[in-house]
């Protein structure tokens, strides 16, 4: 019987390989749908669909201050945003609501920077398009975060400045305190040093003065002697010269006196001669007479003898009596009073600038993933649509293949041969299971290559839920085949079942979008458990063990479906 199973598997693979439409539905169609859904819905999950500038934001800067620059700079560095500069509020509104080229317009009112810097609040103005609700929320989130960062940055800067100034002030106080202490110590040291110096310097000063005085006296004596000698010589020379001149004068005066007498005589004669005109003759000039007491002879210009006496008297005067040196006391060392420099009081925390409350998203492994990081929408769409198309392949594949075999008559021929129904069913299930498993692998590989999906910590672990849901899907195909009598019946039944299972099971959107009661209902579907496992492994980045229970549940579903499906198929085709 295993031979029949094996041959059936081989035959199924041949049939699948020849079924180009089926292969298209297995591989190409899912990728196309995944691409469409992933790119379309990426914004919902915070993922990116373009490397830059996914959203355009109009900005009107009326502030032109630091805050405005910070906002513009931050917007410019937001990878999702591209900035359009507006020239007026009207232009900003038109950009959003009429031209529709920007998701929102941001107006930074004048005075924003001043308000922030002076501790007042400030409000940005947003012009939004209500139709672009999701995009607006995303931009508003980004802006809120931006505002929070700017405010937090300002607060941090203020706190930093306060802390720095406090540190500076404390440092200055400490330095002043240290300086005062050093001054006090220096003054005390100087006082002691002054006392010691004064005691040591007095005899030295005395000796020094005495030495200096002695040297001065000797020097003065030498100089005095030299000078007195020189004066003496000069005086002697001058006295000799004056004596010679005096002698000449004395001779002159003698001759003058003679001339005077002769003149008088001559003049008397003259008058006589003038006769009557004698009266007209003016009196002759008076020739002074020598003073009576002039005794030029008595003038002695001999060298002065008194200089010798003067020398001895001066030398005596240079004799220094013993010095009785009395140095005045040094003024007392000034006492530096103890400065009471108070310690820097601790800053009351309640008086500090309040901190800002931020958010840091951390994944389930504790790794920080940034704020509002979102995730790659394809991490949801690839497994979701892979499971959806897996179900299509499984349900349609198994059920339609069985109905085809029935309609073709091959099922009857198989049963007339040595291939019992269960062997045919098992072969078909296994073949479809393998195909489904390969399909999942190909779609995940395509997702990884084309859409950059995460394969989680252990990519091999993805095989576990993939195998489980492939088994459950293939087994469910037996039930559908038993319920639908013809292809025309199976197609709508299968489509309804697949769509319902996929939608409720969270293949197309996160199951948390659904109401609680629907989430409870979803627990009865293999799609729910498959997506739980894939989301745990790929998005939540959990360990491989996280997929054990969901996979076990789906294998359980598969077993139940198999039992029920075989029973129905036996009744239907047996």
């Amino acid at each position, binding site marked *: 019987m295993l031979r029949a199973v094996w041959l059936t598997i081989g035959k199924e693979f041949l049939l699948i390989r020849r079924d180009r439409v089926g292969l298209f539905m297995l591989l190409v169609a899912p990728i196309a749908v995944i691409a469409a859904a992933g790119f379309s819905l990426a914004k919902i999950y915070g993922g990116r669909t373009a490397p830059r500038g996914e959203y355009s934001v109009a900005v009107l800067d009326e502030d032109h201050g630091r805050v405005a620059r910070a906002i513009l700079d931050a917007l410019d560095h937001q990878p999702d945003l591209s900035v359009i500069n507006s020239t007026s509020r009207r232009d900003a509104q038109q950009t959003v609501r009429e031209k529709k080229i920007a998701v929102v317009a941001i107006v930074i009112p004048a005075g924003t920077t001043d308000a922030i810097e002076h501790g007042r609040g400030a409000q940005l103005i947003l012009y939004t398009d209500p139709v672009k609700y999701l995009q607006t929320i995303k931009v508003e989130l980004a802006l809120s975060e931006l505002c929070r960062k700017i405010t937090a940055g300002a607060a941090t800067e203020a706190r930093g400045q306060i802390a720095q100034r406090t540190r500076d002030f404390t440092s200055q106080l400490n330095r002043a305190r240290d300086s005062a202490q050093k001054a006090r110590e220096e003054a005390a040291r100087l006082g002691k040093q002054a006392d010691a110096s004064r005691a040591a310097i007095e005899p030295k000063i005395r000796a020094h003065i005495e030495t200096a005085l002695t040297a001065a006296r000797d020097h003065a004596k030498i100089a005095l002697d030299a000078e007195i000698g020189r004066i003496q010589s000069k005086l002697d020379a001058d006295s000799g010269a004056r004596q010679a001149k005096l002698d000449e004068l004395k001779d002159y005066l003698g001759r003058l006196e003679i001339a005077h007498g002769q003149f008088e005589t001559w003049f008397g004669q003259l008058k006589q001669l003038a006769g009557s005109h004698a009266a007209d003759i003016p009196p002759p000039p008076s020739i002074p007479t020598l003073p009576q007491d002039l005794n030029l002879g008595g003038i002695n210009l001999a060298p002065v003898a008194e200089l010798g006496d003067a020398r001895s008297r001066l030398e005596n005067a240079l004799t220094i009596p013993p010095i009785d040196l009395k140095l005045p006391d040094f003024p007392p060392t000034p006492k530096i009073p103890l400065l009471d420099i108070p310690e820097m009081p601790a800053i009351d925390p309640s008086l500090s600038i309040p901190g800002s409350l931020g958010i840091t998203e951390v994944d389930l492994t504790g790794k920080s993933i940034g704020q509002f990081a979102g995730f790659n929408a394809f991490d949801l769409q690839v497994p979701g649509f892979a499971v959806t198309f897996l179900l299509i392949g499984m349900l349609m594949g198994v059920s339609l293949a069985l109905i085809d075999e029935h309609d073709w008559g091959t099922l*009857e021929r198989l049963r007339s041969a040595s291939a019992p129904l269960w062997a045919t069913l098992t072969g078909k299930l296994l073949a479809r299971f393998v195909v489904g498993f390969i399909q999942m692998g190909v779609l995940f590989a395509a997702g990884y290559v084309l859409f950059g999906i995460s394969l989680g910590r252990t990519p091999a672990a993805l095989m576990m839920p993939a195998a489980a849901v492939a088994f459950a899907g293939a087994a469910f195909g037996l039930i559908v085949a038993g319920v639908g009598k013809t292809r025309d019946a199976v197609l709508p039944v299968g489509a309804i079942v697949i769509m319902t299972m996929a939608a409720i099971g969270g293949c197309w959107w996160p199951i948390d979008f659904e109401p609680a009661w629907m989430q409870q209902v979803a627990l009865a579907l293999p799609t729910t458990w498959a997506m739980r496992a894939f989301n745990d492994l790929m998005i939540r980045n959990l360990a491989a063990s996280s997929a054990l229970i969901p996979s076990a549940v789906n294998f359980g579903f598969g077993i139940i479906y198999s039992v029920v499906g075989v029973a129905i198929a036996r009744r239907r085709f047996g």
Partner: protein
Amino acid sequence: MNSGPMIRAEDLRKRYGDRVALDGVSFVVNAGEIVGLLGPNGAGKTTTLSILSGVIPPDSGRASIATHDLATDPREARRSLGLVPQSLALYPTLTALENLMFWGRIQGMASSDALSHARTLLAEVGLDDRADDEVNEFSGGMMRRLNIACGMMHSPAAIMLDEPTVGVDPQSRGRIFAVVEAAAQAGGAILYSTHYMEEAERLCDRIVLIDHGKIVAQGTDRELIALAGTEPRIEIMTKKALPPGWSNGIAGVGEMPWEVVNGFAAAATLNNLEQVPDVIRRAVEVGDEVIEFHVHRPNLQDAFLKLTGHALRDAP
């Protein structure tokens, strides 16, 4: 060659709800023998073949293939059987060779044996040049031929063909006949289900007439015709209408009630075909001129009609 019964049906009974599908069907097919299972649509032919091929179980009765009881030894019974179902039990997207290989291997053939035998069979059914073409590109006749080849892949001791010539062209029909006859000559026991009387007469050594789930009669075609007691008859169209008693005086000829067409037709039963000249001569005398006549030899249709009261192709 085993000349014993390769296919044996013993008192097979089958009901589907209130409807009796088979009601005590019994017959055998010996090795090298082609037995036709002849009956109108719904007579129970397919049900009989389904039971004999092990597809469905009978409510009662026994069936065996090559002495292997289908109830107690189904594996060997099925292994000895080749079924050619009425539907084209082929995989349309596989090639002819792939189909033959699959059916041969599912019956336990080794791959190499299956390949060589498949090529032989393809040549026999005239499809050797289409071995690697997908079946969905074949005509209906080609599919029928391949369908038969698939049933014969493992050289079974017993072969059952269910309406194997439905919708086929004369060329394919001839090929099918040749293949079936060759299989019989090779020692196969052939059960050939058909509602084509001509095929049964042409191909079958024996015929089992079945109607409403019951065997009406079985034997060679002559035996069946004889069993039904049918006689040759002549249908005549004359210029003037033949009055009743027009054949009086010719021994062994009996006038038959006949649907008059424009008043110029008559029919009569004959004891033997040697009476035809006398009858024609009398018709010329009485009817002025014989425009047309037709001598009808008794056949299975007549026998069936006689035995069941309704025509083979007009089963209620």
